[in-house]
């Protein structure tokens, strides 16, 4: 058996926590020694249930079959000591002993490029979506890896925006390595595995469990230099990520929102407690001390007709219903529709939700 197969045995052993596996490895030195360990010694270190679970997978044939299945699914295994194992993770408490990875862009884990975790609410508001898009677009000219959890909402939007801009992204799943969750992110999963990397602590075909996600969050924050929270309710999983980031000594930033927005309470609280207040991509450039990769072209000057200026002045940064715009201008709907239409075509405004307009 190869070294990799010994570690694979550990990786596919479920029901034993990562810290216990770590303890065993520390005791025996490496996985091979653990495999060949004397049962009586093991019994002293593990309780009966753990012992049972460890021995259930202690079968050479099973491990070899599993290894072949991994190959079929284009999944490889990283373990502590592996040349590609991300260095950043080594520094965190409870670093995962094994990690499944899918995709070929291993350089994303090397730690040479700065990385930012972007996390947030599953139920994102139009404001949240806009913020994600804007901030990520602002970061794309820099050499940076965006890390997130491929969940619905902010996570998914962040990955999507990076992929659209041709950037680098890593998704850390809270489900088995080949199980896209939520299911509607199937296409996103495929796109990330081609253009970026997919990581998971969990092996093939494992359904997501509620307790996987907080564990997964420690990897997200561990892989990154800073964590950015966009939209979080008062009690949100993203706040767990932020907590772990602090424990791991990472920077935490949050995007503020209106005090009445339930989706912003968590973020505002973070800022209150000392997180960096992020209002633009430039704030993150400072926070991460990014070097500019591409010089951005000068802004194209757009000239607006007088009536366009007038209408544009009534469109705000949060979505506004066209009725309100009409009322403020005291004009009929049919009069301003054409102007709004032109502004939308010029890319000055957009309709995130039907009949609601917002500045881009």
């Amino acid at each position, binding site marked *: 058996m190869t070294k990799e197969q010994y570690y694979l045995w550990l990786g596919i052993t479920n029901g034993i926590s990562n810290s216990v596996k770590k303890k065993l490895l520390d005791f025996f030195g490496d996985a091979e020694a653990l495999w060949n360990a004397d049962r009586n010694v093991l019994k002293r270190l593990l309780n009966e249930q753990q012992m049972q679970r460890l021995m259930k997978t202690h079968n050479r044939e099973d491990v070899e079959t599993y290894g072949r299945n991994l190959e079929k699914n284009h999944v490889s295994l990283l373990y502590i000591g592996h040349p590609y194992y991300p260095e950043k993770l080594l520094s965190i408490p409870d670093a995962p002993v094994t990690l499944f990875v899918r995709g070929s862009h291993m350089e994303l884990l090397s730690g040479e490029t700065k990385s930012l975790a972007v996390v947030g609410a599953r139920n994102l508001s139009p404001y949240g979506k806009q913020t994600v898009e804007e901030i990520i677009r602002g970061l794309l000219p820099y050499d940076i890896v965006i890390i997130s959890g491929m969940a619905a909402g902010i996570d998914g939007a962040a990955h999507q925006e990076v992929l659209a801009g041709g950037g680098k992204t890593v998704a850390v799943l809270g489900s088995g390595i080949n199980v896209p969750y939520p299911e509607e992110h199937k296409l996103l999963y495929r796109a990330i595995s081609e253009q970026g990397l997919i990581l998971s602590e969990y092996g093939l075909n494992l359904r997501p469990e509620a307790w996987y996600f907080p564990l997964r969050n420690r990897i997200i924050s561990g892989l990154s230099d800073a964590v950015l929270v966009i939209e979080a309710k008062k009690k949100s999983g993203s706040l767990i990520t932020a907590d772990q980031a602090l424990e791991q000594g990472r920077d935490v930033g949050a995007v503020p929102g209106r005090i009445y927005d339930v989706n912003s309470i968590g973020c505002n609280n973070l800022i209150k407690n000392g997180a960096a207040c992020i209002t633009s991509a430039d704030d993150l450039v400072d926070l991460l001390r990014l070097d500019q990769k591409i010089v951005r072209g000068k802004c194209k000057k757009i000239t607006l007709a007088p009536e366009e200026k007038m209408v544009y002045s009534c469109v705000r940064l949060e979505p506004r219903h066209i009725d309100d715009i009409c009322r403020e201008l005291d004009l009929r709907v049919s009069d301003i529709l054409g102007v709004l239409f032109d502004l939308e075509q010029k890319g000055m405004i957009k309709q995130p939700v039907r009949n*609601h307009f917002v500045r881009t």
Partner: protein
Amino acid sequence: MYSSIISGGILGVEGILIRVETDIHDGLPVFNMVGYLSSCVREAGERVRTALKNSMYYLPPKRITINLSPADVRKEGTAFDLPIAIGILVSMGMIPEKNAKGILLIGELSLDGHVNAVRGVLSVVHHAFKQGIRRCIVPKGNGKEAALIAGMEVFAVTTLSETASFLNGDLDLIPEQVDIKQIFLRQESEPYEDFADIKGQAVLKRGMEIAAAGMHNILMTGAAGSGKSMIAKRLPGILPRLTFEESIEITKIYSIAGLLPENEALITKRPFRAPHHTITPTALAGGGVIPRPGEISLSHNAVLFLDELPEFNRNTLEVMRQPMEDGAVTISRLNATYRFPANFMLVAARNSCPCGHYPDMNKCTCTLREIRRYQAKISKPLLDRIDINVEVTPVEAEKLFEKGYEESSERIRERVYHAQSRQQLRYQNEQIRFNSQLDTSLCDKYIVLGSSEKDFLVHMYQALSLSARGGYRILKLARTIADLEDCDKVSISHLKEAVFYRNIDKAGGI
């Protein structure tokens, strides 16, 4: 002795003439009825015999045979009672044969000899008129309805003996008269709920105005309590005037469905049908063993309002797809194919998510998946047939109670009437009345775009990745907007507004 009386029945919405032949000759006393009869026609024999007896006519103890011809059409309904009774009386020699010649007879009999109203009289009388018949006898309750056919002499009767004396020449009846102008005048003075009651909602009001002017389909999406149903209720007040021809079409359908109010000659208001969301596909599209018009036909030339659209059964909604394109629904049975007109304007309302608050994320408690699933309940093909999509937001409290000027229904109605008369003038040589009814070839004929407008439309077609149907629908909508503005040419600004209202792909979602 042999006699023959003219009567009529209905096939779908069209009338058909039926000849009632009676023969009385010697033999064992038998009462026989033949001619592909349904059971309610077969029961006529019992009613007729008793009604005759109670009207002081005694049937001779002879062999009586009655045939309803043509014998290969299935006869339905109770309208043959009166012609059968009169046929027997003619055969008995109680009424001179020549007096009953060339008169259309319709009516159901009570056991005491009273003549009751029946369904579908307008269709039958109209058909008879086209076949050259100029006199008819109908039940009193259907008199006004039958008299709508100008040139038809209509006599309304209440009892069998009255009918017999009239045909004998013993009694004079005054032909029924209706004053169509008067009926239409009365309709216009009827009060409506006013648009001025609605604060704000400028986009929705404008959308409603456009929808009404061209009879376009409209879908309102918005939170519970934001005023969707309130506005829909006010829609009848701004609908285009009902023309006489349209009115006749509607009245025929209502007459067949038995929904015409007694002694009411015409439906003079565009009906506003609002079926509950538990409705079955058959009730919506029409059908049954003897096909009857469904809600979409009852909304012919009028409004079908479906509140809480996603709550409707999916199958129920999908049956509307083909009628929405063709303006008619075809129902096939083994022995006949029925075609009911169904040129309706669909007005639908829905919430944007199960809890009704989306996109207000402060209140919305739904997950993204729930919202998507909810919005996916309405299929794309159905959405594609909707010209106007409006998102409705709740009006804020202070705006709700502040005093402001809101346009009244009367002002809106004037503009709609004007747009309607422009359309009538344009389509006077066509079979259609409103822009929404234009088909592809008529679209090309009547909506001529300038080159810059054409470029704009091509650009939008690609930018929005429209379906071909979507492109034409935008064109028709723009035509209506131009009509409202009294423009002969469709300009870019009209197209822009049409594109704005059309935006189905911009789901209210993320």
